[in-house]
């Protein structure tokens, strides 16, 4: 069967890191195998495309539902053409003691005939640069810079060494103390059986010591005082964040806010919340293959990651030391679909560990494949969070002031922890207009397993606090919870707690109206009575969130090509973790090019380097090759608005520069405006003219025969607005919402880079870099649940999500993301618990028999509903909604539990035991 889903694109480019140049080849694994083995030749996407802009099913659906090889775990070295067939399994031994120095391993516990052939201790690679600038405790001896013989250089993003050296203390639970490389799978399995759960295997010297606790930079300190003029602030981070004495001024305002809140003028409610760490529990534990091909000085890696750009840069940097363990000239990266992500594969150190093992394996391929115990012990977590919050309302129920302190447990590695805390700072204000706000939000270094950018990115913790407090205020004052929210919603033209403007119609009132009108809300009394007869307590809770999507400044890359037969090829650096971005991007060509892409090529870090742009922090928009941000990691919330924009604009470039000129020639209408050329049924019509339409294959044929532009690679940047600039292509100036461009002509090997005109265009304001976010996906959730008064067991019976998703691209993907978000949030609220320290997965003995994720019986299979607001006339784009629904489920559950039991629960997860004890205490 002909492969139509994945184009063969073994691409090569030169990448320079730390002054060292590497050749990097990107090889989609599916193509490699489809090309070179018989068994995979059925790889294809089938009849997935329904109509232009629509998908019948996922573009990656067919290969997944038939069990074909698309995940990294599906591969061994012997599957890969050109690789040696002998494969060395690797086991990483991790620290379970952070107080005493690591001394050694008791290798005698491994059967003699299964001993590892290589034991890689930290001292073999430790002579490297420490990074005291990342930390607060700069004065301690062990954090002083040390530059010696660099075997494997630590990328600048990493604070602690890859592997703890003998005689040193681990900096956090789960930090590797050694890599064991085995001859084959048989030895690996025998050794694992002997040592995996044997606490005697890793030996520690008994010299107790504690590392200090300190925050990762930057710290988040948002203080805002609104003025009487809508949109204008007396003081805010957005307005004053660049002031040299911002912190001092913020302190004065914070103190004044706190004094006002304590003055008794308003009703002030305070609470403490405690939220547990949570494992993303993506289904495919991290794994990959590596092979250092000494003859060709080539490092080969097969991985499935959310952050291919960042991982590639880090891997390259590792081999730029003064005496690298192996000389690397070329890196081949084979990228696979990840089996789930949720943030857990974003900037994970896994890929770097894979590269280290490959470098030390004596030229043999290695396989590093965590089992679930190892994944629990080593994988990134949602941060545990301790939170203190006070909220003041006046007698009319108008919110007057907010005071919040959030502390996120960042664990050992920094990862994206301070940025998670920062977004939580924005989310702390909920969906409300709050004239006085004082918010501190920090991610603290600790010895626990590292936290990362889990679905919601700080939102679930922050929204939980304000939404349960509002419910408490409503109930305490006899106010309707929805009406209380209605009085306080943010609207266009107002400012967030950061001071950034609301620049869109949030439609919060519509969400409240639809929630209020829904049966779950209206029939509370009837349902209480019905369940009471069955001996169960019933409660209903509402909560609302306004989760931001994207980051404070996003760089996006997208490539669209028209092949000689008129088929469209899309390439992107984005990764589809299951969220549907491959499908969404494949249908996003239709708006400008009249048809869906027939081929989608994901996870390519080689696209951005083609543009040769720079994002130096000292640069500016006055430089034609400068952008504020190159490219970032993939997250599900970046698809519908951000990544789609890049593909949309690449399609538009292709339309304007390739399709329009050819169409004018064929129609014989040299002056027909571009907007009079209209796609219908994959053919191009001349509006209001009685001319036969032109099929795409005819246009493609002309383009390829005459050597015209066939492909466009664009870079776009969003920070409150899309950068919009003029580009002169073949003598004609076009204005597109992009900041970087290269065009590919038929018959030419190299693209032509076209720089934007610097004397025109639209660029973000400097202040907008301090807005935190300006794009939001508001959502309200109602939960109806029962509580067994004897056991305390809570069961979600009904749920409603009312979502503003903007212009929906593929309804089934939005709905599926919503349903998955509700399920994950139910786990977060009621089931999934993960104590810090050795009481949790740090001990290496955790699995799904201790960590309970929701099953079908835990979600309201037949009682779950999603209402998406009909798009407004001006809604041209979708919103990133991956985490939007999840964020307000947990507070809705807590509020429903209060409704059912009369007890407030703010210590997650709210287990049956906690509910039972709470009810007992309440009498």
């Amino acid at each position: 069967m002909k492969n139509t889903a994945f184009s063969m694109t073994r691409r090569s480019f030169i990448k320079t890191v730390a002054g060292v140049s590497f050749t990097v080849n990107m090889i989609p694994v599916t193509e490699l195998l489809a090309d070179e083995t018989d068994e995979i030749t059925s790889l294809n996407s089938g009849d997935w495309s329904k109509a232009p802009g629509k998908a019948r099913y996922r573009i990656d659906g067919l290969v997944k539902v038939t069990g074909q090889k698309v995940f990294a775990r599906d591969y061994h070295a012997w599957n890969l053409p050109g690789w040696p067939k002998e494969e060395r399994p690797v086991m990483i031994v991790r620290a379970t003691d952070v107080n005493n120095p690591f001394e050694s391993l008791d290798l005698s516990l491994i059967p003699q005939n299964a001993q590892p052939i290589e034991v890689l201790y930290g001292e073999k690679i430790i002579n490297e640069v420490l990074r005291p600038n990342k930390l607060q405790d700069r004065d301690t001896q062990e954090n002083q810079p040390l530059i010696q013989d660099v075997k494997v250089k630590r990328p600048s993003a990493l604070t602690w060494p890859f592997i703890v050296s003998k005689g040193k203390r681990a900096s956090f639970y789960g930090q590797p103390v050694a890599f064991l490389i085995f001859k084959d799978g048989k030895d690996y399995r025998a050794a694992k059986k002997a040592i995996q759960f044997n606490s005697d295997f890793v030996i520690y010297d008994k010299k107790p010591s504690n590392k200090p606790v300190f925050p990762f930079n930057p710290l988040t300190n948002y203080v805002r005082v609104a003025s009487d003029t809508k949109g204008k602030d007396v003081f805010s981070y957005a307005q004053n964040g660049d002031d040299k004495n911002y912190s001092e001024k913020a302190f004065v305002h914070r103190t004044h806010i706190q004094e006002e809140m304590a003055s008794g003028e308003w009703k002030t409610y305070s609470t403490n919340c405690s939220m547990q760490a949570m494992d993303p529990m993506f289904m495919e534990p991290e794994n990959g293959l590596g092979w250092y091909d000494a003859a060709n000085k080539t490092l080969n890696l097969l991985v499935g990651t959310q952050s291919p750009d960042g991982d590639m840069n880090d891997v390259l940097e590792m081999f730029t030391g003064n005496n690298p363990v192996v000389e690397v000239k070329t890196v081949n990266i084979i990228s696979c679909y990840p089996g789930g992500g949720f943030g857990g594969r974003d900037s994970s150190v896994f890929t770097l560990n894979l590269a280290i093992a490959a470098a030390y394996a004596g030229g043999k391929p290695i396989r590093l494949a965590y089992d679930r115990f190892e994944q629990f012990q080593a994988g990134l977590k949602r941060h545990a969070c301790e939170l203190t919050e006070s909220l003041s309302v006046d007698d009319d129920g108008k919110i007057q002031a907010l005071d919040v302190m959030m502390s996120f447990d960042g664990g050992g590695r920094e990862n994206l922890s301070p940025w998670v805390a920062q977004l939580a700072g924005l989310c702390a204000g909920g969906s409300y207009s709050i004239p006085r706000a004082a918010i501190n939000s920090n991610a603290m270094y600790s010895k626990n397993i590292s936290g990362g950018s889990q679905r919601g990115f700080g939102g679930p913790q922050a929204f939980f606090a304000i939404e349960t407090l509002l419910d408490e205020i409503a109930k305490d004052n006899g106010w309707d919870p929805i009406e209380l929210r209605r009085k306080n919603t943010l609207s266009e033209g107002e400012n967030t707690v950061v001071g950034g403007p609301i620049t869109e119609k949030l439609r919060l009132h519509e969400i409240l109206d639809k929630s209020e009108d829904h049966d779950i809300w209206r029939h509370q009394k009837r349902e209480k009575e019905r369940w009471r007869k069955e001996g169960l307590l019933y409660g209903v809770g509402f909560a609302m969130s306004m989760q931001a999507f994207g980051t404070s400044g996003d760089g996006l890359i997208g490539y669209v090509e028209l092949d000689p037969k008129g088929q469209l090829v899309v390439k992107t650096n984005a990764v589809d973790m299951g969220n549907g971005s491959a499908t969404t991007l494949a249908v996003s060509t239709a708006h400008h090019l009249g048809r869906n892409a027939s081929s989608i090529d994901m996870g390519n870090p080689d696209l951005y380097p083609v543009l040769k742009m720079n994002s130096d922090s000292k640069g500016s928009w006055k430089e034609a090759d400068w952008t504020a941000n190159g490219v970032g990691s993939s997250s599900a919330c970046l698809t519908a608005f951000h990544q789609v924009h890049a593909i949309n604009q690449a399609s538009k470039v292709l339309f304007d520069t390739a399709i329009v000129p050819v169409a004018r020639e064929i129609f014989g209408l040299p002056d027909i405006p571009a907007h009079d050329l209209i796609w219908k049924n994959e053919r191009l019509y001349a509006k209001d003219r009685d001319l036969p339409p032109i099929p795409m294959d005819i246009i493609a044929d002309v383009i390829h025969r005459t050597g015209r532009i066939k492909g466009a690679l664009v870079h776009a940047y969003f920070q409150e607005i899309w950068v919009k600039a003029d580009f002169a292509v073949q003598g004609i100036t076009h204005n597109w919402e992009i900041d970087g461009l290269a065009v590919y002509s038929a018959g030419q090997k190299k693209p032509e880079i076209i720089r934007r005109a610097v004397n025109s265009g639209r660029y973000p304001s400097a202040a907008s870099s301090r807005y935190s976010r300006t794009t939001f996906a508001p959502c309200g959730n109602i939960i109806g649940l029962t509580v067994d008064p004897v056991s305390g067991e809570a069961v979600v019976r009904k749920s409603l999500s009312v979502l503003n998703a903007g212009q929906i691209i593929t309804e089934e993907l939005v709905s599926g993301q919503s349903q998955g978000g509700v399920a994950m949030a139910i786990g977060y609220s009621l089931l999934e618990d993960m104590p810090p320290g050795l009481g949790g997965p740090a001990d290496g003995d955790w699995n799904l028999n201790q960590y309970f994720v929701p099953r079908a019986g835990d979600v309201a299979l037949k009682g779950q509903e999603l209402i998406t607001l009909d798009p407004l006339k001006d809604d041209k784009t979708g919103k990133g909604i991956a985490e939007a629904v999840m964020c307000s489920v947990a507070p809705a559950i807590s509020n429903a539990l209060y409704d059912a039991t009369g007890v407030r629960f703010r210590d997650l997860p709210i287990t049956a035991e906690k509910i039972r004890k709470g009810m007992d205490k309440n009498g």
Partner: protein
Amino acid sequence: MADISFSVNGKAVHASQDEADLPLIDFLQEDLNLTGTKFCCGIGVCRACTVSVRRQPGAPSEPMIACSTPLSSLSGVEVYTVESVAENGKLHPLQQEFLDHFSFQCGYCTPGFLMAAMTLWDRLTDNPIPKDALDKVIDDALKDHICRCTGYIRYYEAVKAAILKQPGMVA
């Protein structure tokens, strides 16, 4: 010692006694290069590794957890994996409904759900049930499976749709 003999997707296979303790999933993936069956928890909780088996020829289909089943227990057993479900390039109705309902996202749990549903399919083919009992038997077949992406609803709807479209499964 004699080899352990059983069948996988209709083909006879043999494993040496040295591999008696080897979990079925490792044998499938490493010895037979059948990687459609997925490893997730490794302790038989998540059901991602579910395959369908007949303990002997003609015996009813039943689900089996490949991560926790040693080869030593498989003598004479017929094992069926996701790779066997589509025949001659044509998807099974369950696979088609999984696609049409957008039942999965990352797809890693899909083979497990599919093989559990296939076991149910086989059962209903031999022994139809009343229509009003269908929800219950679907729940019995799928309730222990874990999916982290989708929230389950679309899997349940797909299995129900496939069975209802197939004549003779429900009375």
